[in-house]
């Protein structure tokens, strides 16, 4: 699976949104499920899946799928 696909799966599972949801265009607090609780779940799921530890600033900055993707690339996660 590509990084993009893996991240999409993590978003769908962590935010508990339907399979076909267009997560790539979601924003923090843009949907009910992505509230602060959803955000913490998402952060934990990303850390698990990609074996990374996010810094405070990264958690706060991670306001969209795209930001998360760029961040993981920046951390050197394989495509």
């Amino acid at each position, binding site marked *: 699976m590509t990084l993009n696909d893996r991240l999409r799966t993590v978003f769908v599972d962590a935010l508990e949104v339907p399979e076909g949801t267009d997560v790539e265009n979601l924003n923090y*607090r843009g949907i009910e499920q992505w509230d*602060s*609780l959803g955000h*913490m779940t998402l952060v*934990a799921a990303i850390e698990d899946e990609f074996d990374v530890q996010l810094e*405070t600033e990264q*958690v*706060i*900055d991670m306001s969209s799928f795209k930001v998360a993707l760029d961040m993981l690339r920046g951390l050197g996660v394989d495509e």
Partner: protein
Amino acid sequence: MNLIAPTARLIDAATGGVLGGDDLAAQVERHATAYAGLPPGVVFARSGTSVAAVLRYVGALRADRPVAPLDPSLDPAVLADFVRRFEPAVVVGLAEGGAGATPGERPKQYRHVDDPALGSVWVRERPSTDQPHPDLAVLLATSGSTGDPKFVRLSRGAVESNAAAIGRALAIGPAEIAPTSLPLYYSFGMSVLNSHLAAGATVLVVDGGVLAREFWQAVQTHGATSLAGVPYNYEMLHRIRWSPAKYPSLRTLTQAGGKLRDEMILAYHEKIAAVGGRFHVMWGCTEAAPRMSTLPADALPDRVGSVGPALDGGSFAVLGEDGVETDRPGVVGELVYRGPNVMMGYAESSADLTRGDEQGGTLRTGDLGHLDEDGFVWLRGRLKRFGKIFGIRVNLHDIEEMAREQGPVVAVSGPDKVVVFVEQLTDDAARALAGRFSERLKLHRSGFDIRAIERLPQLPNGKIDYRSLEALV
């Protein structure tokens, strides 16, 4: 009632706009005048975190009109039920709220008006026959964890005296800048707003909460001096390894809205003390407008676990098992608070809004605890939060305390057992925990059902949703 001292200001983080002095006073008057032109009765104010919502709230107070700040994400059916039961003169803030928040269908007997000051509102065609008591100022919905939704009736005197007492306890002066980290319809969020405006300080109106980039950007840009949070906020910030050192203007951290773990209190105390700031643990409830006590920052670390002495103007007593009240140190019982900030009573219908004070300044808190030699309060959980295991009564709060170091934990009562939910618990840790409970309480381990949970469910105000956990049992 004018809540706003002359030097008070509102900063809108979204625009950078600052509203203060004569401009703020003029805006408040403009809103008050708009209310004066409406049929008599209470105001329902759907309140997101916006300057417009703040102005609609303080404008209603200025117009001496009782106001009920409401969660804009309240289910439309619940809002409709509230409107039916309480017959407000007007529902303001129809456009408030974020994703998915809608007020629903316009209720019968109401017409839609676009008011130049108040915005999009529903106005009642014929005033309710139940007109609110003249002392009534604020109505707050009680959190859903303890029963059916109803309003707490707060008098003008209660709101004003509490705002002033908080200001004194926390030394809030005109230089303070408080960001809106909590919802305005939540009693703690409302009290941050009230106490700062009354002290002539600045309220930095910023939406998003402590996990949002905009929030911390605003804290930095505008030099916020304090942060208010419930235990969940501090747990969250801890998990993402947040440190106040990065925000040099931030010097006061306050915590209320439930029990924060002692080690967490000490960790925050150390972090903020290291940069010359202070951490205040506080205790309150909606029924007390809401603050009852504040732990002075210099009482840490020695008195960690206490919520401090009564606020200026208030006092505590303990109602012992013998039914006698005492202020003797060490006696455990239900804590009773007395003060000018105690509510007038509850309201379940518009008829209740007409009633005067039914409490006489006395509030049975429903919390167990004791006082020490200096009158500091030490809480021991809810009076009614007991479970039964094989017929033996156990204090659910004590069980939670025993598991506290495992992470966020809630114990609820099941059929002849206690179900303990712990966030992200491993199977091994769950077995060990059951063993520890069994040993400490001298009860068979099958009486403890330990369950791992991804995240404890929450109410919109950030408090634990006990009801939905009980539903899982």
